[in-house]
């Protein structure tokens, strides 16, 4: 790939990215969330079209304008979310869309033979007579790789393949990757796990902010230097100054021993009045799961949440809201808003009981007045209270979500990726708002995948890894290198 560039509305996702992959090598692609790795791979797999640049395979220039075309060119993409049909058996999945036929009917003997052959190439053993939904995640992934091989893929891209696997299953994956390499395939392997690099990488390519920072042989690219290249030096001038925390500020939110499945493991922390605590970590580390459990959106198995010393009844969102918890979710379209409702209806949704007359009818006049007040306070750019939320921009929608939670008397605010996908101006406004809430004594927890945001907006930073709080840094101690080192498992 040479000089590849790609822009999305408002964002330059990739600029002048070049990548070379040799036959029989494993190239590991690393970079922070949002560095452009996934976009680059989607371009290679035909799922996204590049604005500029070219792709050459075996020296010949090719145009890859659809996933089908990528498959024909021998490019196999293994996404984090599997593309298997859960009800079908492994052989049926491996041949899906390319079933060998005999007299117009599926030749099931040939289907099984092909599955056997490609799984043998991978050195994998998978039962044939069960639906893939019954297989372990690791086995499903091997089936996914086998599917790519069955389409005679010579270039195989794996997007964080080890993220969902147990240690034993990772060994199986590594063995499969080693066999692919030995068979002459080129493998691009996206990973966040530093400890894996030395095991499988021939070369390491680091991306940051849509550019290639450095590509080196894995042998002379120490982990510390990789992290330094990932993090880089950045300007973070757009953060408003964070006021000092009053030394005598009492604890407002206290979480102790919170556990749920294996996604939240014995998490304890507290947040004082006026304090902003940042939760850093990789995607999938369990940050969202922690705040969901605190908010009552998921029922924790063990542990307790207290606000100003009072225990919050576990597992009922209504109780958590009544106790003063506001949970601003990560995905505003799927979880935060009813897109087909108006600004007014969304803003009052969580506190509608305050707008009811004689316990019966909703008072539209008071609703409009309250919504109008929030529109003014947050400078929500909407033509009016009756505008459908669907028609607003991302940043404006996020402000509607905030307005919904500011309407009540919440004392604890849980922000999950509060500025994802919104423009810089709206970001700054949301930061100012967080500071204002803190100044009024609210306790704030902010989950963010953007390191500058965590560093610029937190009094304290907790790094989450594998559902646990792996490290805690004060504002003074925290640095991008230290956070990334803990988050990726390069340091304890």
């Amino acid at each position, binding site marked *: 790939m040479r000089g590849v560039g790609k822009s999305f509305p408002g964002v330059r996702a990739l600029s002048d990215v070049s990548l070379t992959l040799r036959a029989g090598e494993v190239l590991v692609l690393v970079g922070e969330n949002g560095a452009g790795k996934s976009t680059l791979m989607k371009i290679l797999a035909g799922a996204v079209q590049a604005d500029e640049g070219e792709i050459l395979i075996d020296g010949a220039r090719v145009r890859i304008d659809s996933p089908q075309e990528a498959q024909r060119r021998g490019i196999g993409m293994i996404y984090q979310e599997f593309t298997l049909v859960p009800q079908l058996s492994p052989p049926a999945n491996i041949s899906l869309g390319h079933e060998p036929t005999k007299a117009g009917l599926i030749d099931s003997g040939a289907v099984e033979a092909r599955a056997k052959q490609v799984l043998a190439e991978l050195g994998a053993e998978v039962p044939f007579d069960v639906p893939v939904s019954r297989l372990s995640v690791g086995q499903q992934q091997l089936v996914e790789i086998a599917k790519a091989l069955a389409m005679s893929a010579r270039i195989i891209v794996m997007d964080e393949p080890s993220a969902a696997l147990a240690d034993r299953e990772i060994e199986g994956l590594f063995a499969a990757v080693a066999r692919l390499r030995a068979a002459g395939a080129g493998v691009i392997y996206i990973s966040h796990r530093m400890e894996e690099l030395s095991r499988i990488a021939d070369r390491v390519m680091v991306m940051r902010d849509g550019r290639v920072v450095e590509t080196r042989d894995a042998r002379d690219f120490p982990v510390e230097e990789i992290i330094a290249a990932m993090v880089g030096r950045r300007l973070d001038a757009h953060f408003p100054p964070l006021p000092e925390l009053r030394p005598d500020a009492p604890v407002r939110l206290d979480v102790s021993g919170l556990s749920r499945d294996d996604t939240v493991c014995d998490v304890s922390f507290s947040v004082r009045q006026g304090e902003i605590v940042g939760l850093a970590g990789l995607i999938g580390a369990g940050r969202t799961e922690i705040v969901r459990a605190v*908010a009552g*959106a998921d029922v924790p198995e063990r542990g307790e949440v207290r606000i100003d010393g009072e225990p919050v009844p576990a597992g009922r*969102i*209504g109780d*958590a*809201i*009544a106790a003063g918890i506001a*949970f601003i*979710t990560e995905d505003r379209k*799927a*979880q*935060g*808003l*009813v*897109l*087909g*409702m*108006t600004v007014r*209806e969304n803003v009052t*949704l*969580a506190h*509608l*009981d305050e707008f*009811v007359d004689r316990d*019966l*009818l*909703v008072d539209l006049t008071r609703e409009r007045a309250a919504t109008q007040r929030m529109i003014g306070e947050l400078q929500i750019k909407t*033509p*009016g209270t*009756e*505008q*459908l939320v669907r*028609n607003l921009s991302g940043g404006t929608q996020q402000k509607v979500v905030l307005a*919904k939670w500011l309407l009540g008397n919440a004392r604890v605010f849980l922000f999950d990726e509060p500025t994802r996908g919104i423009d810089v101006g709206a970001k700054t406004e949301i930061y100012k708002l967080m500071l204002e809430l803190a100044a009024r004594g609210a306790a704030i927890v902010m989950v963010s995948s953007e390191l500058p945001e965590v560093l610029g907006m937190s009094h304290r930073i907790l790094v989450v890894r594998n559902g646990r709080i792996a490290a805690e840094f004060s504002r003074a101690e925290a640095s991008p290198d230290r956070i990334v080192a803990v988050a990726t498992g390069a340091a304890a």
Partner: protein
Amino acid sequence: MKNGDRRAYWLRIAAAGAFVLVLVAVVDVASRGSFLEPSNIVRVLRQITYNCILGVGQTFVIVTAGIDLSVGSLVALTGVVAALFANAVHLSGFALIAATLIVAVAVGCAAGFVNAVPVVKLNLPPFITTLAMLEMAVGAAFILSHGRPVALQSADFQNTGIGSFMGGVTTALHLPNIPVPVVWMIAVIVGASVLLTRTRFGRYVFAIGGNEEAARLAGINVARVKTAVYMISGACAGIVGFLYMALFSSGSPQTATGDELLESIAAVVVGGTSLMGGRGSVIGTFFGALLIGVLYNAMNLLNVDSYLQKVLLGAVILLAVVLDELRKRYLSR
């Protein structure tokens, strides 16, 4: 553009109104004026009463993105139970009518509750649970009635079933008599419309249909609201069961087990309520039922063959939803 969507809403009402007006004009001319006679208009309203009330209950369910297939059988079951009850108790006059109505509505509510439990507890599709209820309710109606209509012993229900509302007044004003069931329909429409558009509950119904997860995270008790909508649908079936029982002076296990279910859904959908949830109105359902009723009436006046009537009705339903979809695409461009 302060309120584009409300404007779109009125545009739809206006378009539907124009469509109905043209239809009315054509049919009236073709039937030599009998179509627009006041007595014929009242007849249409009377004919759509039952379908409209069922559709109103169905509207609540469909706005939450659910479906209630059991409403027709519940009409049969509640009618049979109400008739058995009325024959068994020693009451008369208003007390008998009120008690029988309460029984019919209670049976409908209970069935709606049973419909809802697997939906909210196990997340089963309402298509299945209400389909099961469809079978169970009609079976129970046959068992309870021994397969025959249960004749009412009391004549107290006559006015409810076939009487006129304030007959003295309408006669004095030279207006056609207003059938009591039509008054019931209007009361149900007004009550349901206020419930759906003006109360917290109604707001939550839309929120759940629009985005169930967002509704849950806003602290709404989704299970309770969903249970209530199936109970409302059951209650509406109970009212219709009661009205049919009063009309026929008997509760029959075969009442409303034909096209009634599908026509109630058709009224809702033609009335602009989205099967995907989150959008709809009770008034729309009334107009949907009215369109179907007007169509049947017109085809009868024009002596259209009754088999052909079915074909035409289906075609009109399809046309209505296709036009609505095209209108939406046009507006969203």
